[in-house]
C-alpha cells in the first residue's frame, strides 16, 4: 500500500525501497526498566505499512515508554526496534527525517504564533510541506497568526499534530492524542487522524480510551504491565471473548466492547487503575 521514499532521491540512505512484506515498524523483545520499575517487559509489535495501529492499555502499562523508544527519545535496555527497515543505532538522522511525532504533553513556545512555530519545525526537514497547507489540514487557518499561548487545548493539540505533519513523515506516532480534550475537540482530532489514514500514512496511536482504539485503529495491541496481552483488529478481539465469563453487562451496553476484552483477559477494567 505505501511504498516509501522512492521520490526522495536526494540522498543515498533514503532510497531504500521497502517491499510490502517489510513492516513499517517491528519491535522485538523490548525491555526497559527504570530503577526498580520494569516499564516494558518483553514487548513485541509489528505494524504494517499504511495501517493505523493502536496501543491500548491503562496508565502505567508501558505504552509511552514503548513509543518513546520507537521515537528515538529513549534507549532500550534490550530488544530491537526496526523502523522502515532502519535502526536508531545506525540511521538516526534518516529516521528523524522520516518520522512525525506528537508527545503526550507537548507544550510549545507560548510566545510564538502558529505560523512561526510551524516554520521552525519546517526548517528542520529536507522534504517539508507548505506551512499553509498543513495549517488548513488541521483546521487552524483562522488562528494562523495567533500566539500559541492564546489557543485552546484542542487547538494546541492540533498544532502539535501539525508540527508532526509538516515534515512530510511516513510514519506518525501519536501518544494519547485526545487525552484531556473535550468531546468536540476529541471528535475533531479523530476526523483528522482518519484523514491521514485515507492518505495512506502509517500511524501508531497510544491511548487508554477504548472507544478511540475501536474507532480509529485497523489493529489493536492491548498492553498491560509492559507486554502485549492481546493483538488483532477490534472486531476480532471482541468476537474472541467468551461472553459468559463477563459480569452482567451494564444497562446501556448491547454488545461487547474492547473494554470487555480487557476485563476478560485481566479481570480489571481499563478505567479502574
Amino acid at each position, binding site marked *: 500500500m505505501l511504498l516509501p521514499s522512492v521520490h526522495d532521491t536526494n540522498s543515498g540512505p533514503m532510497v531504500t525501497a521497502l517491499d510490502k512484506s517489510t513492516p513499517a515498524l517491528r519491535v522485538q523483545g523490548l525491555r526497559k526498566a527504570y530503577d526498580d520499575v520494569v516499564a516494558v517487559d518483553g514487548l513485541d509489535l509489528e505494524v504494517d505499512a499504511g495501517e493505523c495501529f493502536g496501543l491500548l492499555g491503562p496508565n502505567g502499562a508501558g505504552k509511552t515508554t514503548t513509543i518513546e523508544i520507537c*521515537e528515538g527519545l529513549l534507549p532500550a535496555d534490550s530488544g530491537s526496534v526496526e523502523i522502515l527497515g532502519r535502526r536508531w543505532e545506525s540511521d538516526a538522522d534518516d529516521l528523524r527525517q522520516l518520522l512525525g511525532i506528537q*508527545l503526550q504533553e507537548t507544550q510549545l513556545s507560548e510566545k510564538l504564533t502558529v505560523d512561526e512555530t510551524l516554520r521552525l519545525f519546517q526548517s*528542520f526537514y529536507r522534504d517539508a510541506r507548505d506551512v499553509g497547507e498543513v495549517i488548513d489540514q488541521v483546521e487552524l487557518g483562522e488562528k494562523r497568526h495567533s500566539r500559541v499561548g492564546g489557543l485552546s487545548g484542542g487547538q494546541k493539540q492540533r498544532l502539535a499534530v501539525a508540527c508532526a505533519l509538516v515534515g512530510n513523515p511516513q510514519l506518525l506516532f501519536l501518544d494519547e492524542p485526545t487525552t484531556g480534550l473535550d468531546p468536540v475537540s476529541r471528535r475533531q482530532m479523530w476526523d483528522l487522524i482518519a484523514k491521514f489514514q485515507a492518505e495512506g500514512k502509517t500511524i501508531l496511536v497510544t491511548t487508554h480510551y477504548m472507544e478511540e482504539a475501536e474507532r480509529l485503529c485497523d489493529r489493536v495491541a492491548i498492553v498491560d504491565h509492559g507486554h502485549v496481552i492481546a493483538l488483532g483488529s477490534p472486531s476480532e478481539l471482541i468476537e474472541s471473548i467468551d461472553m459468559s465469563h463477563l459480569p452482567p453487562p451494564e444497562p446501556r451496553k448491547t454488545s461487547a466492547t474492547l473494554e470487555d476484552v480487557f476485563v476478560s483477559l485481566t479481570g480489571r477494567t481499563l478505567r479502574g487503575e
Partner: protein
Amino acid sequence: MFQLTLVRFREFIREPEAVFWTFVFPILLAAGLGLAFRQRGPENVQIGVVGSAATATAVIDALKKDSTLIVQTYDDSAAALALRTGKIALLVVPASARDSIRYVYDRDRSEAVNARVLVDRAVQIGAGRTDPVRASETYVTEAGSRYIDFLVPGLLGMNLMGSSIWGIAFSIVTARSKKLLKRLMATPMSRSQYLLSFLASRLVFLILEVVTLLGFGYWAFGVPLRGSLVTLFLIALIGAVSFGGLGLLAASRARTTEAVSGIANFMMLPMWIFSGVFFSSSNFPQVVQPFVKALPLTAVNDALRANMLEGASFAAVTPQLLIILAWGVVTFFAALKLFRWR
C-alpha cells in the same frame, strides 16, 4: 539555523520584563548613580569657633574671608558635641593671646585635614601673613575621571553579562521543563545549531544594548568615547558571546527555573562585587587580585574602560580579550558536553 535564531528574537522581544531589565534598567541605574555621585563645585567646609576668648571676633572675621568656610560659633560644651557628631569638621579655639591658636579635629578624616589647611591659611592671612609667591588659578574639568565615567563601562559590562546569562539560561530551562526540548530532540534539528542560535541572537541584541547605554552616557553625561568604536563593539561582542557560553553552561542541566536562578546568581554575584563594576577592583587586597583579574567580567570592564576613557587600541586590550575568549570557548564546549537534552 536562521529559523532557530529568529525564534530566539521573537521570544525575547515578546517578553516585556526582559526588555525592561536589559534596556531600561541600566539607564536608570546610570542616571541615578551618576546624579548621586556627580562632581560638585568645591565643597563647603563646616567650621566651629569657640567664642569665649577675646580674640575670637578677630579670628572669626579672618575666617569669613574664605568663602568656602562656613563658620559657626559655639560655647565649650556645644562645641564638643558638634565635633563628635560630625557637624563641624574642625574646631578653632582662639586663645587669650593673639599669637597662638588651637585646632581640634580628627586627623583620620580627610575633610578635617583639608579644613585645617584652609582654616590655618585664613587665620594666618588675617593676622598679616603675605605670601612671597603670587599664585594664579586655572580651573580644568576633564571628562574621563569622574565617577560616572568609571561607572558607565562597568554598567555596560554588567548588563552584557546579565542579559547573556539570564536570557539564555531562562529560555533553555523553560524549554526543558516544558518538554519542548524533548520534542525538538525528535526532529532532525542539529543540537549545536540550537545552542549557537542563542549566541547568534545575543549578537544582534548586543548592538542595541551598547548603543542605548553608551548613547545615554554620552548624551546625558558626556561620558567620553575616546577609543575606536570598532574596537569597542568588538570588545562588547566578544564579551556578550562569551557570557553566552556561561549562560549555556548554567542552563546545561537544570530542570527548573528555580534551580537555574540559583546557578546564575552563583555565577554573577562574585563578579558584581569583585569585577570593578561600581568601584575599582584594585581596592581588593593583593592576595585576591589574580582571582579578580581572571574573572571574565573584570576583563570586559577593564577592556571597555581602557578603550572608552584612555583610547586604548585593539592591541592594547588583547590580553583581556584573550581571557574573555577563553572563558567563552571553554564554557561553550563544556555546555555541549554536559547538556541534558531530555
